[in-house]
């Protein structure tokens, strides 16, 4: 099967080789590697890999990469999935850490946070990009977020059905 993932790497010799070695270790074959230099910040760069890899290898690869790297995005049908949601409300007062922990407990993870704060008395907006090894874990992660958002009085904007996005 084919999958595409985006990881953040230190812009240093040998870093790319480490990821390629991981792909090979789990039986994958790299089709393309694209450096997104425009995303370079603090000496780190985002790199997009497209690989052909057996089903079980894909899961183990994502698992291994998530331990050592910042995994920005994973796209694969029936496999690792990415999604994006927006929280609106007094997110920081109500405890952002608590929300994120709920996602981790569901075996999903938060790969990006982007925040807009409109002053102390106004609701903030937080974009949360999620990654998960499969649709099941993503569903659990989203459900955990839904429950926490409801109890904390936050508005949760999810992607429209069937368009989970990347």
């Amino acid at each position, binding site marked *: 099967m084919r999958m595409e993932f985006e990881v953040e790497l230190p812009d240093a010799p040998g870093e790319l080789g480490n990821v390629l070695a991981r792909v090979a270790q789990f039986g994958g074959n790299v089709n393309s590697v694209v450096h997104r230099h425009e995303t370079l910040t603090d000496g780190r760069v985002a790199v997009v890999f497209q690989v052909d890899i057996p089903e079980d290898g894909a899961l183990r690869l994502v698992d291994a990469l998530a331990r050592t790297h910042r995994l920005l995005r994973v796209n694969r049908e029936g496999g690792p999935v990415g999604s*994006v*949601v*927006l929280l*609106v*409300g007094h997110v920081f007062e109500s405890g952002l850490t608590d929300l994120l922990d709920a996602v981790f407990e569901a075996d999903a993870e938060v790969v990006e946070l*982007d925040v*807009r*704060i*409109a002053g102390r008395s*106004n*609701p*903030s*907006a*937080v*974009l949360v*990009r999620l990654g998960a090894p499969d649709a099941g874990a993503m569903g659990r992660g989203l459900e955990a977020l839904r429950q926490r958002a409801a109890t904390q009085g936050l*508005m949760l*904007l*999810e*992607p*429209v*059905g*069937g*368009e989970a*996005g990347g």
Partner: protein
Amino acid sequence: MADHPFRVLLVGYGTVGRALHRVLVERHDALRERTGVDFRLVAVARRDRAARDPKGLAAEHPNALAWSRGEALELIMEGDADVVVEASPTNLQNGQPGLGHARAALEGGLPLVLANKGPMAFAYRELHDRAAKQGLPVRFEATVAAAVPVFHTQRHALAGDTVLRVDGILNGTSNFILTRMAEEGSGLDQALREAQAMGYAEADPTADVDGLDAGAKLAILANHVLGRPCTFHDVKLEGIRGVTREAVELATKHGHRIKLIAEAGREGPIRVGPRLVPRGSTLDVSGALNAVRFHAELAGQLTMVGKGAGGKETAAALLSDLLEVAKLRGFAAPGP
């Protein structure tokens, strides 16, 4: 029967009712030529006034019609018509008085064409069963997304297919507001004032902004397209009042739009609420446009986009329903 006039009784004479009247008069000859149907608007009721003329009411300014005291229910029960069109304002408390008009029409053996969402949003199953028992057609294309041929598509083009899920943008006003917020960086209050200034939003925007209007339409879609018995009360509603300028800004930055989406599947929640829609999605339609998307078993995804409101557009939907009813009731020339 093709030599007989097709007598229309119209309830409601607001923007939609008057637009339908004009269309039936202006297009009378062309419609007769093309379809064999001899349309004749023989009675109109609005509030406690009625106007009637068995030879057909001329389309004029409402002040020029010869109104007398009279109730829609009386007119319907008199039964001097071949079809009842219900185009009075939608009531999202209980569907009345439109629901009463719809019941009376079917009881009196008259086919029914609806622009008013209330009756179907509150009593789809009852009206459907009653009509089926009596072999009377009921059509309601105009209740959802005006001229966008949602129900015609399902009834005809997808007759042998199964729609598994439906989602879309069913309220033009809230879509206009969210579009202005994304394009101009304005806050909700400012965008709402603009919508009101442009005539998209009512002075009381509750039905649009809080998702009630979209919810009523979704209840009708879920019943008819998904075969899921439900009413307006079963729709989980969340409006757009909580959507902030900052939320819109973040969504845009990350390649999404925030849209008020109505969605239902064959099971699971029937709901209306703000969602993230990827830019370039078929549901990424701007301004006051509506979009309805079917996820069908064979046909896959089909999206229909168009104006979801307006007198002329809604009259177009009523006209297509009226033609269908006329054909079913033997008022049209035999087709090819």
